[in-house]
Every structure is written in structure tokens, then in C-alpha cells.
């Protein structure tokens, strides 16, 4: 199945990740101890034989290009296809900062048009899931759909969500775009779409020329009756990150072994940049429970219900609970942290006690010392 190309939006307007995306795109946000969000998208594509990919970036993309390099870690260093990165203003047709998906896609129309594939998947990059696009494609063909949109079941939060209703055959009959949180689970759009390339090109060109910027509102919602839009439900673990709370919550869900196996093995392996860290060393005072620990850590203290990224040092007597410590973190002796998201290279000095709340985890900005 080599007839599909992929377009990835590395940044998007809707997420509210504040400090965590101060210096990086959503796509390069670290997740699950050794990954970046884009690893899931890239791996799903590669595992589904989709190997001609364009990544549209807006700002802060050096962390992304540094992570991807030539795409070798995902087997995407190809003579034919592979990864092309499109920053704003990369060509004459890319005349804006991409105020939305329509402008972003318009800026890469040439790339899409000239690709040999007949179909295209466009996706956001704030999604951690293990998706088989081959079965999405089969579904699309079976339904004779114009657009297949992937959906999952969740409770809407305060971020912008597209809530869909489908008929018995799976055709989308109603779309509601909302930012009102609810405790009732609903079928929500994942911001992943599959369609024929020529149809997408027509839709984007027409909407761009009319000055539209909102893909969901100006295209999907408006044309839901004339276009055959079908919903493809993704089950198993689906982690969509759009604010600090969801980042924390989705990270912690990975401590569940069934969900973790689902994310990492369901349809194929999740690849990431290889850093050649040594195995993690547990010393005599180590006490680790229910935690996910990447390579290169050095653990002398207590780690409970937490996620440690690569190369985190935990000194004797330090206690890390319900927290996420990103690469290169250091927690000195006697320090205690609870409900903390420590970005890369954070140091918690001796005997410091810091705590957030489950409903409001505290973020410590990259490189800071507490």
C-alpha cells in the first residue's frame, strides 16, 4: 500500500501547553520517557508503508529538525519520498505564517500535487496512538468516502473539540465544534483525515481563495451534506494532548501495562531517535514502584508512580512521586517532589520540597534550578 502520502502539522493553534511548548513544537514535545510526539505519527505512517511525508512547521522548529535529522531512525531516509520539512515562507506560495490548516496546506499544494501518491493523510501531531492506516484506507474504500476522519471516545475538555454524530453506516451527520468541557464521553475528531489528493487540493484551493482559514469549520462542517464524510473509530489507547492537565493525565495512563502494550505494540513498533544511553543503574538505596524509567538513569532514591526520561539522576534520600522528570533532570538528596512536570535539564536542589496537584500539576521550565 504505497498510494498514500502524509502531511503532518508540527504546531497547531489549538493546544495550550504553555511552558512545555515555549521552546518547541507540539510535535517535539517529549512523552513516555524517551519519545517525542511526532514519533507516534512517523512510526504509524512507516508501519503502514506511508513513506512520503511533509511536515509543516510554524515556529520553534529547531528541536524538531534536530530530532528528525534525515529520518533515519524511522527508516525514512529514502531516495524516493522520505521526509520534507516545510517552514513558513519556504517558497513563493508559502506567503504567511499559516494561520490555520487551510493556509498551511495551501502553502504545500505543489508538494502534494507533485507527489506520485493518489491519497493523502493529514494529521496533527499532538496524538499518541498506534494506528494502522492500512485498515483506515480499506474502510475509506469500502465506504466510498470522500473524507474519512478518525475519531476516538473521550470527555471534551476546554480545548477546541470537534464532536461528531454518525449514522448507522458511519457517515458523519452532525459536527459540533466546542470548547465546553463535559463529563459525558463523546465521539471526538482526532484531527486525522484521509482523502483523495485531488479532492483535498480542490477543497483547499477553493477555501483559500475565499479567505477561509478554518479547515474543520469552513470545509468539513459546511460541506458535511455534500461531502461523504465517514468516521473511523480508533480504539485502544489514544492520548491527545492539548493542555498541561491532559499531558499529565495521558502520561500517567501509560503506567497501566495494558494501555502501554497497546500503545507500543498494537500495530507495530514505535521508533524514536537513538541516543545510545547506558542501561539504568539502580543503587543500594533505590526504591522504585509503578514507574516507567528510560535508559541512562542513576537511581539512589525513591521513585513512585512516576516517569523518568533518559539520564535522570536521583540522589539518595530523594523522593519523586506522581511526577514526570524529563531528560537530564537531577533530584538532589532529601528533595521531595510530587505532581511535578520537570522539563529537560531541571535540577531540584537538596532538601527542596515542591508539589503541585493532581488536577493542576506544576511545570518547572526547561533548564531551571529549584
Amino acid at each position, binding site marked *: 500500500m504505497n498510494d498514500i502520502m502524509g502531511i503532518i502539522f508540527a504546531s497547531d493553534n489549538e493546544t495550550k501547553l504553555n511552558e512545555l511548548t515555549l521552546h518547541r513544537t507540539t510535535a517535539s514535545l517529549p512523552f*513516555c520517557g524517551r519519545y517525542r510526539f511526532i514519533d507516534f505519527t512517523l512510526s504509524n505512517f512507516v508501519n503502514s508503508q506511508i513513506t512520503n511525508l511533509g511536515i509543516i512547521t510554524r515556529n520553534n522548529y529547531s528541536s524538531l529538525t534536530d530530532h528528525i535529522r534525515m529520518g533515519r531512525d524511522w527508516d525514512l531516509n529514502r531516495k524516493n519520498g522520505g521526509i520534507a520539512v516545510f517552514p513558513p515562507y519556504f517558497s513563493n506560495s508559502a506567503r504567511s505564517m499559516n494561520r490555520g490548516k487551510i493556509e498551511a496546506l495551501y502553502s504545500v499544494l505543489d508538494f502534494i500535487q507533485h507527489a506520485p501518491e493518489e491519497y493523502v493523510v493529514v494529521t496533527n501531531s499532538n496524538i499518541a496512538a498506534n494506528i494502522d492506516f492500512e485498515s483506515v484506507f480499506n474502510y475509506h474504500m469500502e465506504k466510498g468516502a470522500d473524507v474519512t476522519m478518525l475519531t476516538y471516545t473521550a470527555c471534551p475538555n476546554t480545548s477546541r473539540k470537534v464532536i461528531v454524530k454518525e449514522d448507522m453506516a458511519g457517515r458523519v451527520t452532525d459536527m459540533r465544534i466546542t470548547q465546553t468541557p463535559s463529563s459525558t464521553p463523546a465521539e471526538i475528531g482526532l484531527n486525522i483525515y484521509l482523502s483523495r489528493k485531488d479532492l483535498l487540493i480542490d477543497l483547499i484551493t477553493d477555501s483559500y481563495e475565499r479567505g477561509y482559514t478554518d479547515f474543520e469549520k469552513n470545509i468539513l462542517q459546511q460541506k458535511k451534506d455534500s461531502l461523504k464524510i465517514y468516521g473511523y473509530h480508533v480504539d485502544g489507547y489514544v492520548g491527545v494532548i492539548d493542555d498541561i492537565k491532559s499531558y499529565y493525565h495521558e502520561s500517567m495512563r501509560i503506567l497501566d*501495562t495494558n494501555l502501554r502494550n497497546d500503545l507500543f505494540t498494537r500495530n507495530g513498533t514505535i521508533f524514536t531517535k537513538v541516543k545510545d544511553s547506558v542501561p539504568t543503574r539502580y543503587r543500594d538505596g533505590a526504591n522504585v514502584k509503578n514507574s516507567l524509567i528510560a535508559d541512562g538513569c542513576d537511581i539512589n532514591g525513591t521513585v513512585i508512580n512516576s516517569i523518568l526520561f533518559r539520564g535522570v539522576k536521583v540522589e539518595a534520600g530523594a523522593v519523586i512521586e506522581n511526577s514526570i522528570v524529563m531528560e537530564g533532570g537531577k533530584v538532589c538528596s532529601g528533595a521531595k517532589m510530587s505532581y511535578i512536570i520537570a522539563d529537560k535539564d531541571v535540577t531540584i536542589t537538596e532538601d527542596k520540597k515542591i508539589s503541585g496537584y493532581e488536577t493542576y500539576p506544576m511545570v518547572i521550565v526547561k533548564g531551571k534550578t529549584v
Partner: protein
Amino acid sequence: MNSRKKECVAMLLAGGQGTRLYSLTKNVAKPAVSFGGKYRIIDFPLSNCINSGIDTIGVLTQYQPFALNQYIGNGQPWDLDRLNGGVYVLPPYMKAKNSDWYKGTANAIYQNIEFIDKFSPEYVLVLSGDHIYKMDYSEMLASHKKRGADCTIAVINVSLEEASRFGIMNTKEDGEIYEFEEKPKKPKSTNASMGIYIFTWEKLRRYLIEDEANKESSNDFGKNIIPAMLGDGCKLYAYNFSGYWKDVGTINSLWEANMDLLDPESGLNLDDDNHKIYARNSAEPPHYTGVDALISNSLVTEGCEIDGEVVHSVISTGAEVYKGAKIEHSIIMPGAKVREGARVSYAIVGDGAEIGAGAQVGSKQEKGEHCAIAVIAPGYKVEENASVKAGEMVE
């Protein structure tokens, strides 16, 4: 097609069967044996080469080459996928006449003279694939050049008792070798050869051709080439190396070297950004330590799921330790499983092996030469509640 000239080409002898590793090398060559959680033995010489600025390496394979070929691949994990140079796997091959297996270490290099000549090197570094150590070969090469040597042999100081197990280099004060003794009963010095040679290629080339012409020769560096060069008055020098070095050709030494990783005093530290050891990565998620886990003084690698007790052990990529299991002073190789309530003590559990629930493998040992390490062959399944005695090897 002429390759660009290289100052120094490395030839890595990786064809040995490693019979003294028993079932661990039944299906793979010794250099492909797992080490230290996420490495294989061959990662050490390959990483040493790239860390020393040597980017052209021929890997001489013969015994069970498939796993090794697959592991080395295009050399990318070691940054050895180069346009000029890089890593080449060199098995014996059919020639118009005189086709043969590699008969000895020197014959293996002899059969690849053409390969080496393509890079027109001044020097050839000969390495073996069964040692654990970190070394900057460029310093050894500098010493070779400075002394105008024909051959430089890396040596390490061993104890007098150990010396009779090694090839011993007897040297003058300035390091010039005047005598080489293979496993001497009464060693005159304690300079043990590490199996690392730098030759001036022009010289070595001549000696390889002469040695090949001699039907009596066993075509071995230690037995034939070095003595012949000494006999002719060539300039052979010892190069003293003082870091960690261990031959891991036996079950006990392989076990000890793994245990040395756990000992901060051993001198074997792999967590060094200036001299990383690279390995082919198997893309596993971080390891998970469960609510019932208790881990101390151990190494745990990506992809592991640990819910039992682990004491002073090395747990390799993707291994699983179930609730109630206890592992002490052992090496669990990649993908092995230790089921509920099993006990593993002073043992090596091979790749993908499984220890059934309640089984007992090995038992407490005193450290030292007579330490009896139990070995479970790769892929072998120890039945539930079965027992494998100390030092026993099952396959």
C-alpha cells in the same frame, strides 16, 4: 574503483566459535554474544574504532555469521555507514584458485590483502572480537609512528599467577620486545598481550605472503607472524594500556565482566559521553518497574518489565521478571523471562530463555575461579518448579 586512501584500516577477527562459552555461542559467533544489558561484545571494538577516528573496518567472520552480519548491517549504529570506508563484513569466499576457510588469524588477513590494499593504508590495526575494554587506538598509533615500529602490540599488566594464561611480551626498558612467550609456565614478565596489534602494512603484507608460502605454518599471529618478525630483527614494541580490559571468552569471565559493570571500583564505566559504546537499538519503550518490584545494585535496560526482586544483576533489553521471582548475581539476557516465584542465583540466562514459575536456577557461590555459574541456553525453557544446579549448563 579506487577507494580514497586511509591512514589506518582495522581488521577485526570475529570468526571464532567461542567453544568455551558453550551454549551461548551455539547459534551465534562469540562477538555477537550479549553483554551489559544492551550491548554485544563486538560493540566494544567497533565503538573504540570510531571513537579513535578509524572509520574503515573489515570484520572477518566465519562461524555462524548470520546473526553477526545482521547485527552489523550497514554499520549505521556505530556511525560506520560511510561513503568512503565504513564497516565491511568479510567472510571467506571462492577465488579462482586456493579457496579455503580462514585457517588461522594471519590467514584470515592474508585472504583479504586485496581488500586492505584498496585503501592503500600505511598501518593496519588487528583486533579481536572477544574483549571488553575502552581504548583510544589513535594514541597507540601515535606511539607506533613515533617509535618507527614495524609492529606495536598492546599489553596490560597482569598478576604473576595470571601471566601463564596469556601471551607474554618480554621487553627491554624502552618497550622494545625481545621475546614473546605463549602461555609460559615460568613467566619472566607480566606484560600480557591484549590481542591488539598495529602493523606497518608494507611489512605485515610481506610476512603474510611468506607465512602463507610456508606449508608448516599454522598461519597464526601469535604462533607464526610475531616470532618470525622477532627472528628477523623487526622492531616490535609493547604499548602499555592501563584501563579496564577483560577477555570474555569463558562463562566465568563473561559473568565477571558483567558484574564489573555493577562495581564502581572496577574501572569499567560505560556512562562516558567522551567514549560512548554504541549498539544497535531495538526500539523498545522505557522499562517498567511494578508495584512489587525491589531492585538494588543492578542494571535494567529498556523494554524490561520488572515486578520481582533483583539484586546485583544485569537485566537486558526486553527481559521480564514476574512477581515473586528473585534474581541475584545473575545476567538475564535480552528477551528472557523469569516467571512467578522462580529463583535465579549466580546464573546466565540466555537470550529469549524462560525460567518457569517456581523453578530454581543456580545457587549461592563464593567469588573466584571456582565460582560455578549456571547457564541456561538461549531459547531454552526451564519447566515449572524444575531445578538447575550451580554450574550446570542446560540446552
